[in-house]
C-alpha cells in the first residue's frame, strides 16, 4: 500500500518547485504579450489607424464625359449614349441560376450569356458585381426595376458609351475609341489617372485619337469606403471632373454619306476639297466598316473578315493608299514645261501612237495616235506622246520641282492616322533606293504619272485645288476645337503664271466638255455647275510584249487585282472654282468610266448642297441618273436607320 510517506513528500516538493517554475514562465509570456499589446495599441496606434484608413478609403475616379465630334454644320458624328447594364451580386442573389432564369423572362438573354455569367459569378471574389448584359434600353431596365423584389442581387448601372450615328460613313475620318492598352499606360509622360478607370476608352485611330487630349476631359473623383473585397459601402465625398471639349471638322456629313453610298462596294477612295480654304469636305474610303463594332468589342470572326478582305476595308485609302496618278499627273508635266519655256502652248507635236527613245519604244494609249496635238488638246485627249516630248525637253529635275509645288511627295499634317507622303522621285532617290542611276525612260514614265510616281487621293485633290485656285492650298480637317475656330489664312500664290494655269485649265475643261475630250460622257451641262477634269488610268504593272502580241490588252480580260486603277480629278464650277474632287477606283479599269462619274456626282452634290439636280446631266443620262439617285437616297436613309438603332 502506497501512502503519503517520506518519498511522496519529497516528490511533491520537487513537483511544486517545477510547477511554480512553469507558472512563472507562463506569467512571463503573458507579460510579454501584454507589453506587446501596449506597444502596438498605445505607442503606435496612430500609425496603425492611418493604415486602417488607407485600407478602407478608396479613391474612385469618375470618368469624364467625352467631347462630341461634329461636322462643319454641327451634325454630331461621334457622341455619347447613356446605356444601362444589368449586374448581379452572387451573395445577394442566393440561387444565381434561379434568379437568371427569372431575368430571362424579362430581358432576352442568350444561352451563352447565362453560361458566362454563371462561370463569372463562380470565379470572382464575393460581392463583386458581375455584368450580366450591357447596352440595354431604358425599357428593358424599367421592366427589370419593376420586378426587383423577385430578382435579389440584380441591380442596374448606367454608363456613357461612344456611339457613331453615321456608322461606317465616318469610320476612317473619326476612327473609334477602344480600351486603354498596356502600352498607353507605360508612356514615358505622366499617365493621366483617368486611364486607370476600368472600361475607360480612348481614341484608337482617326480624329478620336488625334484630338484625344481635347476630347478626353479630366477625371472627377469620389472617396468611398470599401470593404476588403472592394464593395463600396458608402460615399464619403465627391469632386466633379471636367468634361471633354467638342471638336468640329470641316467634313460635310451629308456629302460624306452621299459619297460613301455613291462609291458602293468598290475598293475606292474620294476626297472633296474646298479650293480656297483647303477644307476637306469629304474623305471617303470604300469599303468601310462600322466603328461601333470596335467600341462594343469586335468579335474575332468579324475582325478576321475585315482584316482578310482583299478590299482592305480597314485601310483609309484617301491618305494611306498611294497609287500611280497616271494621266492625272500630266498637268504638272505641262506646267513644268511651260514655265521652263521649253514649249509654247500652241506648239504642235505629232503623235503617231508610239515614240522611240534611246532604243526603247514607248506607246501612246491610243494605238493609232492622235495626230498633231497642242497642249490643250493633248490634255483633253490625254495624248501620251506629247508629254514624252515634254519630258525629254525638261528632264526629271524640273518635273520633280514642279510636282513638289503641287504637293507630291509631301506628308500633309492632318489629324488622320498614317498619312502617306507618296513618292515624288528624284535622281538621288533612285540611286539611294534602287542603286541605279536615273534613266531617260524613268523621266518618260514619270511624265505621265507612271513609273515611280505615287500619290494618295488626298494629294491629287490638293493638286486639283491648287490648279483651280492658283494658290498653295493646304488641306485641313479641323474646323473648331473647344468652340474656337481654327485659323484660316489665304494661302500664298503658287507663283505660276496665270497664263500657263489658264492653258492647263482649258485643257481640263476640254477633257470634259470638248467633243473629243476623254471624259465627255461625264460632262455637266449646266453652265453654273460646269466641271473641268482629267482622267487617269494607271497601270498596276507593265504590259509584256508577249501579252501585246497575243492581244490581251483590254483591262476587263485580266484578273481583278491586275486590272488598271481608274482615276479622275475634277473641279467646278469652271467659271469660279469652289470645290475639287479626286477619286480613285482600285482596279476599276478606265478612269473615264469608273472614276469620273463618281467625281461628277460628288462635285455636283457639294456645289448644289444636296442631291445633284437632274438637269445638270446630259439629257440622255437623266433617266439612268434618276434611278440611281433614288437607289442612293434609299441606301443612305437605310444606313442612318441601322446605325441609329
Amino acid at each position, binding site marked *: 500500500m502506497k501512502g503519503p510517506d517520506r518519498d511522496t513528500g519529497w516528490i511533491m516538493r520537487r513537483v511544486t518547485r517545477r510547477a511554480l517554475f512553469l507558472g512563472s514562465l507562463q*506569467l512571463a509570456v503573458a507579460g510579454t504579450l501584454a507589453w506587446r499589446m501596449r506597444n*502596438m495599441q*498605445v505607442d503606435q496606434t496612430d500609425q496603425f489607424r492611418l493604415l*486602417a484608413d488607407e*485600407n478602407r478609403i478608396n479613391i474612385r475616379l469618375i470618368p469624364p464625359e467625352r467631347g462630341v465630334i461634329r461636322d462643319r454644320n454641327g451634325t454630331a458624328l461621334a457622341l455619347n449614349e447613356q446605356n444601362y447594364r444589368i449586374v448581379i451580386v452572387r451573395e445577394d442573389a442566393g440561387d444565381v441560376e434561379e434568379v437568371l432564369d427569372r431575368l430571362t423572362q424579362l430581358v432576352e438573354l442568350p444561352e451563352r450569356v447565362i453560361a458566362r455569367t454563371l462561370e463569372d459569378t463562380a470565379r470572382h471574389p464575393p460581392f463583386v458585381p458581375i455584368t450580366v448584359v450591357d447596352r440595354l434600353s431604358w425599357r428593358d431596365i424599367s421592366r427589370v426595376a419593376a420586378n426587383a423584389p423577385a430578382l435579389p442581387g440584380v441591380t442596374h448601372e448606367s454608363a456613357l458609351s461612344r456611339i457613331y450615328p453615321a456608322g461606317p460613313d465616318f469610320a476612317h475620318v473619326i476612327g473609334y475609341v477602344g480600351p486603354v492598352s498596356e502600352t498607353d499606360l507605360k508612356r514615358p509622360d505622366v499617365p493621366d489617372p483617368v486611364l486607370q478607370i476600368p472600361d475607360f476608352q480612348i481614341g484608337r485611330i482617326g480624329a478620336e485619337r488625334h484630338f484625344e487630349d481635347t476630347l478626353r476631359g479630366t477625371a472627377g473623383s469620389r472617396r468611398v469606403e470599401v470593404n476588403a473585397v472592394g464593395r463600396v459601402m458608402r460615399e464619403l465625398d465627391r469632386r466633379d471632373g471636367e468634361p471633354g471639349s467638342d471638336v468640329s471638322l470641316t467634313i460635310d456629313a451629308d456629302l460624306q454619306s452621299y459619297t460613301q453610298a455613291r462609291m458602293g462596294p468598290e475598293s475606292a477612295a474620294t476626297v472633296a476639297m474646298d479650293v480656297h480654304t483647303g477644307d476637306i469636305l469629304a474623305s471617303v474610303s470604300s469599303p468601310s466598316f462600322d466603328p461601333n463594332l470596335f467600341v462594343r468589342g469586335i468579335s474575332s470572326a468579324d475582325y478576321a473578315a475585315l482584316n482578310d478582305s482583299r478590299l482592305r476595308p480597314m485601310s483609309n485609302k484617301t491618305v494611306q493608299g498611294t497609287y500611280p496618278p497616271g494621266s492625272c499627273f500630266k498637268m504638272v508635266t505641262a506646267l513644268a514645261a511651260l514655265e521652263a519655256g521649253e514649249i509654247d502652248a500652241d506648239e504642235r507635236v505629232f503623235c503617231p501612237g508610239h515614240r522611240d527613245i534611246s532604243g526603247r519604244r514607248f506607246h501612246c494609249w491610243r494605238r493609232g495616235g492622235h495626230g498633231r496635238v497642242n497642249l490643250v488638246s493633248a490634255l483633253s485627249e490625254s495624248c501620251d506622246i506629247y508629254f514624252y516630248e515634254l519630258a525629254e525637253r525638261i528632264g526629271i529635275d524640273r518635273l520633280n520641282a514642279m510636282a513638289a509645288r503641287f504637293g507630291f511627295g509631301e506628308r500633309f499634317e492632318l489629324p488622320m492616322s498614317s498619312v502617306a507622303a507618296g513618292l515624288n522621285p528624284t535622281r538621288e532617290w533612285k540611286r539611294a533606293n534602287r542603286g541605279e542611276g536615273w534613266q531617260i525612260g524613268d523621266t518618260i514614265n514619270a511624265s505621265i504619272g507612271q513609273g515611280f510616281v505615287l500619290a494618295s487621293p488626298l494629294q491629287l485633290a490638293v493638286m486639283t485645288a491648287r490648279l483651280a485656285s492658283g494658290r498653295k492650298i493646304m488641306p485641313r480637317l479641323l474646323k473648331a476645337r473647344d468652340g474656337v475656330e481654327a485659323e484660316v489664312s489665304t494661302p500664298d500664290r503658287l507663283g505660276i503664271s496665270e497664263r500657263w494655269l489658264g492653258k492647263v485649265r482649258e485643257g481640263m475643261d476640254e477633257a470634259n466638255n470638248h467633243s473629243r475630250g476623254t471624259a465627255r460622257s461625264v460632262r455637266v451641262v449646266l453652265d453654273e455647275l460646269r466641271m473641268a477634269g482629267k482622267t487617269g488610268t494607271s497601270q498596276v504593272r507593265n504590259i509584256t510584249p508577249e501579252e501585246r502580241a497575243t492581244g490581251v490588252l483590254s483591262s476587263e480580260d485580266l484578273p481583278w487585282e491586275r486590272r488598271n486603277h481608274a482615276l479622275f480629278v475634277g473641279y467646278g464650277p469652271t467659271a469660279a472654282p469652289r470645290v475639287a474632287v479626286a477619286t480613285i477606283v482600285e482596279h476599276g479599269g478606265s478612269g473615264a468610266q469608273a472614276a469620273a462619274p463618281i467625281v461628277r456626282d460628288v462635285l455636283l452634290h457639294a456645289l448644289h448642297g444636296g442631291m445633284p439636280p437632274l438637269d445638270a446631266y446630259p439629257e440622255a443620262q437623266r433617266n439612268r441618273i434618276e434611278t440611281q439617285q433614288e437607289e442612293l437616297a434609299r441606301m443612305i436613309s437605310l444606313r442612318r436607320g441601322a446605325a441609329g438603332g
Partner: protein
Amino acid sequence: MTYLEYTVKRVPAGFAKVFYLDWGLVVLLMAVASIGFLMLYSIAGGSLQPWAEPQMMRFAVGLMMMFLVAFVPIWFWRNMATLAYALSILLLIAVDLFGVVGMGARRWIDLGFFRLQPSELAKITTVMALAAYYDWLPLRRTSHPLWVLIALVIVIVPAALVLRQPDLGTALLLVLGGGAVMFLAGVHWLYFTVVIAGAGGLVSTVLASRGTEWQLLADYQFRRIDSFLDPTLDPLGTGYHINQSMIALGSGGWSGRGFMEGTQSRLNFLPEKHTDFIFTTLAEEFGFVGGVTLLTLYMLIVIFCIVAALKHLDRFAMLLTIGVTVTFFLYFATNMAMVMGLAPVVGVPLPLVSYGGSAMLVLMLGFGLIQSANIHRPRGL
C-alpha cells in the same frame, strides 16, 4: 492511490460533489466564453446568427460535459487514460484515411452531426496518457533513458500523425504540452537541455532544407515563416493575414474604436475574423483595455488551476491538472502571439472564444477532468 484509500480519506460523494466544484473556475470560463459571444455577435454585424447562437449552444453542451466529467471519480479517468489515448490515435489515423479536406489540410472527420477534429482531442488524451504513465512508473525510473523514451513515443506518435495532416501548429502544441508534463514528472533537466538544443538544430536543418529534394515542410509552411519574419514582404499574399491583423490590433488604441465600430473587421479586411483571428476584433473594438482584460481572465484561469494542482497529493491528478492547464495556456498564448506578429501564423484558435466546436468541447472536457480531480481530492486528513 487505490479506491480503498479514497474511500478512507473522505472523498465527497453523491450530491455533495456539487459543493466541491471549483465554482470560481466555472465563473471565469463563462466570462471568457461570454466575451466570445459578444465578439461573434459584433462580427456578424449585430446578429446572433450565424455564429453567436451556435457558439452559445456549444458552450452549453461543453458546460454539461464538464459537469458530467467532473462528477465521475478521477480514478475512473485514470483507468480510461490508455483507452482514450488509443482511441484518439485511431481517430488520427482515420482522419488521415477518410478525413475531410479543408484549407489545404486534412483535419476533420465528418460524423454527420458534428465535424470532429481529432488533433484537438489528442492534446488532452496525450496529457492524460502521460499523467497516467508517470503515475504508474516507479519514481526512481523517471529519468532512466528507456522510460523517458517510452514517454517520448507517447508524445511523438500523435504529434507525427498531426504533422502529416499537415498541421504544424497543433503538432508543436502537442509536443510542448507533453514536454510540460514530462518536466513536471521530474525528468532530468539534462534531457530538456538536449531537446532544446536539438530543436534549435532541427529548425536550422528545416530552414536549410528549403528548395532541396528532401524539403521537410510544405511550401505554404515556408511562406508562412517568411511572412512571419517580414509581413510586409507580400502584403496581398501570405503576409496579408498578419498585416491586416496587426493593423486592426494597433488601430484599436487604448480603449478601442467601440463595439461594432471596428472598420477592419466590419469591412472584412480581417481574415478568419470569427475563428483564429477573433482576438484582433476584440483588440480593435475594445482596445488595449479589452485585450488585457481577456488576457487577465485567461491568466486567472491558469493560476486557479495551478493553485488547485499544488493541493493534489495524487500524482495523476497533479500532472493532469497542470498538463491541461499548460495546453490551455499554449492555446491562447500562441494565438495571441500569432495575431500580434510575435509568432508565425499557425492554425490555433483562441480557446473558448474562437468560433468552432472541437477545440471548445475538448477544452471543456479537460476542465471537467481538472474539476473531477479537484472534487475527488481526499480531504480531512
